[in-house]
């Protein structure tokens, strides 16, 4: 039982830090609340889907921005817009915030600005992926030890 308590404590602290540092916002908590016995892996599944999609969109943006003959900013913007939607829906606050700035640069047709944002969004996405993987690992450990995942408000 002590092991479970320790792990749960770790989970709560880690969750809190992710919220505090802006990696996750309340929308993520909403998703955690949706998880139930019918869909016990809901959050992990959505997160995996998000990361898959994120990579695809980032690649689209990179390709569009590489075009030497002239960047199709509308195309870049379309990908950024979609990433903004999915990141906000999953609660990936820092990724979403970069998307907001990114869209302004697309509108202004500023290639340098866009490239900077692309770098930032790639960075934030990797950070978030690592952090969520740590969080999910903690979850697995709690469950394996016979405990239940605490709900972090």
């Amino acid at each position, binding site marked *: 039982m002590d092991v479970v308590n320790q792990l749960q404590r770790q989970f709560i602290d880690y969750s809190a830090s992710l919220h505090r540092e802006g990696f996750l916002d309340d929308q993520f908590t909403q998703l955690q609340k*949706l998880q*139930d016995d019918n869909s016990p892996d809901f959050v992990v599944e*959505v997160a995996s889907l*998000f990361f898959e999609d994120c990579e695809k969109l980032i690649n689209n943006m990179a390709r569009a921005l590489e075009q030497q003959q002239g960047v199709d900013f509308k195309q870049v913007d*379309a990908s950024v817009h*979609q990433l903004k*939607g999915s990141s906000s*829906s*999953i609660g990936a606050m820092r990724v979403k915030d970069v998307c907001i700035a990114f869209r302004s640069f697309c509108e202004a047709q500023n290639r340098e600005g866009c490239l900077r944002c692309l770098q930032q969004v790639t960075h934030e996405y990797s950070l978030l992926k690592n952090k969520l993987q740590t969080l999910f690992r903690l979850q697995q450990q709690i469950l394996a030890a016979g405990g239940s995942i605490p709900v972090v408000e």
Partner: protein
Amino acid sequence: MNSSNGNGSMSTASSSGAWDGRDQFPAGLRVLVVDDDPTCLMIFEKMLKTCLYQVTKCNKAETALSVLREHKNGFDIVISDVHMPDMDGFELLKHIDSEMDLPVILISADATKQIVMKGVTYGACDYLIKPVRIETLKNIWQHVVRKKARNTV
């Protein structure tokens, strides 16, 4: 509330006819949700199912339109993302408006006044900004009831 909609029975496994006369109202509301973003689509489906609605999901507007045409009177409300490749939410809304009498809710990560105005002028019964919370989805049955009431006058 009288379930006077007896025209046409559904060939799908779900309910036939109106849902609003039954005891568990608004559970069983038949929702068609359309979004090309897989992350958002998965989240919407989970949220709508948690609301005890019957959910059908599509990742393309054209598919959604076929489904609606094939199952006349099979749905109570449509929720659609605005920005989709090929056919967008506005075009889908126009088709639905001319061919069927269904309330359509538009969703987007875009919150500019112009686009919301466009949605409303095109006839969307509501325009939601991502991230959508489950509390908002819990209330969508009101649009169905409102439309039915207007039609009866």
